[in-house]
């Protein structure tokens, strides 16, 4: 059983949103700006034309961090949110009662409501689509024009992601909250 995570070479990101589209297409996610599992965040550059600060206009893809100590898993009253055998945080839509506690507990704004099942939904690392078919890449990784993402097994020392994390500096979002996210931003 694996321990899945993702490394993001986010400086490659050009904010084209191919990953957002591929995710929705692969996983049948509904349209709607508030119904996205993954997104690319951007900032307006600081400063006043023509003295604009390039570094402040960065692009940061983000999504569910599949934390090892996920607040969403802790707060779920019915265990609808659980860790599957690969360390992927999943939502069992048969058990979710939509108390929305997890939506408030998640520090990363990763969760939203799927109108069809009226339950909480989020990135699943394509577990029930691509991974279930035996593929080794997620939809977002596969489609990215500048190859920002590398998904893989953190427990496999030979995997591409393990090598990347061993050889390059990286950080995680809101690490001080102790959620132990499994998304690593390579610097």
């Amino acid at each position, binding site marked *: 059983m694996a321990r899945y995570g993702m490394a993001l070479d986010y400086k490659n990101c050009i904010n084209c949103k191919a990953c957002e589209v591929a995710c929705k297409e692969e996983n049948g996610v509904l349209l709607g700006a508030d119904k996205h599992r993954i997104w690319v*965040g951007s900032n307006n550059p600081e400063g006043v034309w023509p003295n604009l600060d390039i570094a402040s206009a960065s692009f940061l893809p983000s999504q569910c961090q599949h934390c090892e100590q996920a607040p969403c898993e*802790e707060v779920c009253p019915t265990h609808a949110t659980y860790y599957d055998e690969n360390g992927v945080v999943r939502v069992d839509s048969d058990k979710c009662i939509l108390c929305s506690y997890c939506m408030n*507990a998640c520090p990363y704004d990763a969760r939203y409501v799927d109108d069809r099942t009226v339950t909480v939904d989020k990135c699943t690392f394509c577990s029930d689509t691509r991974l279930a078919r035996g593929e080794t890449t997620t939809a977002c990784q596969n489609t990215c024009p500048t190859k920002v993402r590398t998904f893989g097994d953190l427990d496999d020392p030979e995997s591409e992601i393990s090598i990347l994390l061993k050889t390059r500096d990286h950080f995680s979002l809101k690490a001080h909250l102790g959620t132990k996210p499994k998304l690593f931003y390579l610097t």
Partner: protein
Amino acid sequence: MTEEAAKQEGFVEKAKAFLATIPYNKISVKDILNYEKTPVNNFIALLTVLFLAFFVIGVGNYLIHGHEAYGVTREHPWGLLIAVYIFFVVSSTGLCIVGSLGDVFGFKDYEMISKRAIFGSIVTILSGFAVIAFEIGHPIRMMIWNVLTPGLRSAIWWMGTLYGLYLTFMIIEFVFLLKHDMKRAKTFGLIGLLVGLAAHSNLGGVFGFLNARPISNGVFYPTYFILTAFITGIYIAFIMMGFRYRLKFPENARVMLVNLAKIQGLLIAILMFFETWKMMTAIYGGVPGRSDVAIHILTTWPFWAEVAFGMLIPFIVILKSKGQDIVGMFWASLIGMVGIFFMRYDLVHDTQLKPLQMMKIREYQLPPEWVHYTPSVTEIMISLGGLGICILLYYVGTKLFNLDADAH
């Protein structure tokens, strides 16, 4: 007849026999409609019917459109209905505390309000459940999976389970109060109170455990909830007694209410002290997620409504009259309940004020600043409907049961 069946039948017989011993008035619909037709009473009756109609319409709208009928969003998933639920359960816990003063802790002056308060606590929590049933997406599922696969680290699980237990104990305590079985009432009252306090602080813990929300995270909400519950309970006690005696209080009621007023004064003073320090420590040092949110809260009008209506006005009334002006306190309690409502709304809304993700996700949008929320018409209707249910149940209760203290 087999032994099993005999046992069952025997149990049913025993239960029926037990139920028959509970004193209540046999009333008909005519009796319910038979009240003193003063303008005030008519107005309240009309309002209640209107609110009940709202409830039906609101629930109907929800059943057709689902959560789209509400103003909740991805960034702000808890809205008016959660705030109203909290409002009701806090009232319930508060009434339980007030009711326990007499029959659990033995303070003689407060015995006269025990039955009424405990009944009030049942009625309010049922109203709260009526409101939240239409907020939780799948209430039936909740009842199944909360039992089969409970999330034992979830404050919502504990809150829900404990409130269910608390309601059970409150009902049992009330039954014993009706039967004037003071010993058993005390036992169940005590257990119910403890379970209720645990449930209520877990409700505060729902917010307190949110590491992602620095403004709410921490010790404050679980503890201050108990304090405000007590305050709310006293406000409602004033309101209930005010209506019971039409503001012409007999001596024993007057003594009790003056005592309650003085206690209230102390509690409000403590509350204001707590709140002030909470805001100051939140703002101090400019910690992002806490300081900026706290400063923003100070600029929003619901916060000042909470302070003015919930704390300042009643406090001034008590202070000026040294607790003696209990008629003034009745009116102040009504105002106070408005303030309490704002307290609950602020709690829910302020927790979600700061977006968790501060980057733009589309080019053509303003950068995220504060999360906005406006309750939808459906939510308002269901909330008012909850109030209507509460008033109706209480009123029927006053007819069905004798809520005054029994003569010794």
